[in-house]
């Protein structure tokens, strides 16, 4: 397998139901995404964006096809491991529409939850969490509860949480949906910077066409399959700003 590939999918299909209720959502989708790329995933509502994201994220089982995450094949018409949750924990970071931080845990505990699940010792987990909070300029908020932070700050914590386990892939489901234009641009630029600096592949579902110029490529779902639109606009904007 070619080095630098973060995700490779071959002819993945997903259908639901049987007989009269049979629906095919994704049909023969094949694509390759490289480390360091920020990909925008667009499709009309009900077009299969979430289903595709869930299949890449080892949550939803495809009906058929093959998936590789990094150099490891994880799906070949069935999951090749019983521990898909472990794959998510170790290789994938998730960012959601809202921050969805755990409201009864403070910021640092929210960030150390996943390393704890990975049996990382508390000291190392906290050091990594603090490093990320510093990177996102919210180091002084580590003891605060999510309810005490602004929407933008919480979304930065959510991005930090997605990065805390040093994943190879980040799946972001409309991460800017709850933010205003300026904050949305800031978050997308931040994601681009993270993709480049940490060699992470990021797939970002978005409905906001204003965010597309900041992405490397646009992946569309058309006629139930994926196609790419090459995109070069503002490719270096992250570093020039």
């Amino acid at each position, binding site marked *: 397998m070619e080095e630098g590939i973060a995700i490779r999918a071959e002819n993945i299909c997903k259908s639901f139901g049987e007989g009269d209720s049979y629906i095919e959502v994704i049909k023969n989708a094949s694509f390759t995404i490289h480390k360091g790329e920020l990909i925008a995933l667009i499709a009309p509502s009900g077009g299969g964006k979430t289903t595709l*994201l*869930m299949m890449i994220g080892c*949550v939803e089982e495809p009906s058929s096809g093959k998936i590789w995450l990094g150099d490891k094949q994880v799906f070949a018409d069935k999951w090749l491991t019983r521990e898909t949750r472990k794959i998510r924990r170790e290789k994938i970071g*998730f960012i959601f529409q809202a921050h*969805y931080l755990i*409201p009864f845990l403070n910021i640092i505990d929210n960030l150390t*939850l*996943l390393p704890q*699940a990975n049996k990382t010792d508390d000291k190392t987990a906290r050091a990594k969490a603090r490093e990320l909070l510093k990177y996102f300029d919210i180091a002084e908020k580590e003891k605060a509860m999510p309810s005490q932070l602004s929407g933008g700050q919480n979304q930065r914590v959510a991005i930090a949480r997605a990065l805390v386990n040093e994943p190879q892939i980040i799946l972001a489901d409309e991460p800017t949906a709850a933010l205003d234009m300026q904050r949305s641009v800031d978050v997308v630029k931040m994601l681009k910077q993270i993709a480049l600096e940490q060699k992470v592949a990021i797939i970002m579902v978005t409905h906001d066409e204003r965010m597309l110029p900041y992405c490397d490529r646009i992946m569309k779902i058309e006629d139930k399959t994926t196609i790419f639109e090459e995109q070069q606009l503002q490719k270096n904007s992250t570093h020039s700003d």
Partner: protein
Amino acid sequence: MYTKEQQRAVLTEYVVEKASKQIGMFTAILVIVATIIISLIIYTMTLEKMKEISIMKLMGIPNSMIVRMIVEETLLLGILAFLFGNLFSHLIYSRFPKRVVLEIPDAWMLFAVVVVASIAASFVGVKKVISADPAAAIGG
């Protein structure tokens, strides 16, 4: 015709034994009711947290870790209820029409019962956690 000893036995041991059984019965009923109430509270609290639980499962947090959180929460509720209950009973027991003796070994036994009852009460919440769908975290 009772002898003096038998009369004493009827008037003391039997009455005491009966009262002790009654108190024991009340305690058992109260523990069962408390377990049901804690179960319902934990079930409601778990339902309120379903989105967060789905997110944790989506991120890859193992069930054992989430279940531990639920059990800890239930235990905390049970222990707080025990402490406040005990404190309250010590404050008002002298006003009871019948003399009540509060003994420390009994309190420890009740504490053990409360811990077991709390763990049993967390079962409904734990069941809900195990059935939570990680896919529910995405897409609204």
